[in-house]
């Protein structure tokens, strides 16, 4: 095994190079993010939570959706350390994380984490949402070490 690498600060990918698209199933999630409100898709009938938002509930098949306000905190489920900006190819340390969100019924978000060195990110680390403006006026939920 090689020695642990001192990567240095974990940075968020620049918002101006990130695009998303939406459809009627997913748009309420992104509208909430624009208002800096973290939500996940919840079945309005049986309460089951799912991500990404999809046409119908996998538990009860209902199409009605609720968008509860979550506390905006969570736990790192797993992560990867990357060293290159994927668009420009320049050296750029960023850490994609899978975050299990508090109050989200086990649902997860894929994001970047900041507020610590990349080599200090670990599974189980507590994080809080950090809002990143991206293209077309949308806002992306990223995370910061809590």
């Amino acid at each position, binding site marked *: 095994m*090689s020695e642990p690498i001192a990567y240095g600060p974990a940075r968020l990918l620049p918002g101006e190079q990130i695009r998303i698209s939406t459809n009627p199933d997913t748009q309420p999630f992104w509208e909430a993010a624009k208002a800096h409100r973290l939500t996940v898709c919840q079945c309005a009938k049986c309460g089951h939570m799912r991500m990404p938002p999809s046409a119908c509930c996998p538990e009860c098949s209902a199409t009605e959706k609720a968008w509860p306000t979550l506390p905006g905190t969570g736990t790192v489920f*797993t992560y*990867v350390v990357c060293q290159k900006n994927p668009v420009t190819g320049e050296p750029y340390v960023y850490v994609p994380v899978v975050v299990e969100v508090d109050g989200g019924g086990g649902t997860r*978000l*894929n*994001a970047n984490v900041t507020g610590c060195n990349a080599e200090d990110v670990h*599974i189980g680390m507590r994080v809080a949402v950090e809002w990143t403006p991206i293209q077309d006026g949308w806002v992306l939920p990223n995370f910061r070490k809590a």
Partner: protein
Amino acid sequence: MVWANQDKCAIVGVGATDYYVRGKSWPRTVNEMACEAILKACDDAGISIRDVDGFAYYSTAGAGYLDKFDTGSLIETLGMPHISYTATLTAGGGGVAGAIGLATAGLMNEDAKYVVTVMALQQLPQNRFGVLGVSSVPTPENSFLKPAGLVGPGYSVSMLTRRHMHLYGTTQDAFGEIVMATRANTHNRPKAIRKEPLTKEQYDASVLLSDPLRRLDFCLETDGAVAVITTTTERAKDCRNKPALVHACAHGGQREWGRAFSWMGMPDPWFASSGHKFTADRVWAQSGLTAKDIDVALLYDHFSPMVLMQLEDYGFCEQGEGNDYVLAGKVRYDPVTRKGVNGGTPVNTHGGNLNEAYIIGMTHVVEAVEQVRGTAINQVADCEFALASGGPATIPVSSLILRSA
């Protein structure tokens, strides 16, 4: 319950082009390479292209990532008189082993007599797989994944790998051993792209593209084409070479795996797995076999940790024990005894996607055929059963057991 169609069909022909480093096959066209592979497979089977009347594709009939196979165009190009079966499995490379089951379905339904399964791949700069994710606007669904900067599947597989390391203490040394052990199988293969022996020092010096994975944990990017022909075992008697009997074949997957690392919502223990437990259990049920009965395992190795996780899902070892299994040398092939090492089953005797060539899994099917024929370059002694798998990715994944006739 034994599969009703067990041993009733067989792969009777295999054909392949040379393998080229990504982009180097130009100015050949992807169709020209596909046709060469198909015609070579016909020749190997001892049949005419005019006898072929079926296609069973996978990867949504993709020829690589942007090009598509079109059966109308292929029969026009190859002068085939008619087609009575043309079908594909959905999604991507996960279906490669299952495409042989799709061929079997057409044959057993008497839709066709000789069915081709083909993959051709040409990654010119504009349609390189790893670049597609960066340049394209994400769909509404993968807008929940791509903004995190997971550039390609290797980055996403690193997420599963990290979780496996966390849950079970799996080490990067095991991934290195998989790369080195399968590299040791290519020195005598004229068409292999990576043939030089690999040391642990060289592996450790390979750049961490997406920590915990290094460049050498990622498979090759290759151009080329591979085709195989499946027919009924009855017709196979008239073919040129020894048939490879389709003993069991399954594709699919379970809800907990779903879109897998395009989703990241898999609950433990499925998250840190290859997603193959479902199809593995199906082929074991179809055949009555277990991992212990398999003489050689051709496991889809787009990324080295997925070999380790498949060893667990197929039951070569328990889940969480892949690290120790691999580090005990049990994926190695011993050219002296022509058997496994330390009680293990030889894995990827052809060098796999990591070392020989990456034609989206078709080389694994070819190696399975050659092993049960007894004609493989790194022949396993007394090889009766060969297992081939389709890439751990979004459903379907797939499993195939070939039997020596």
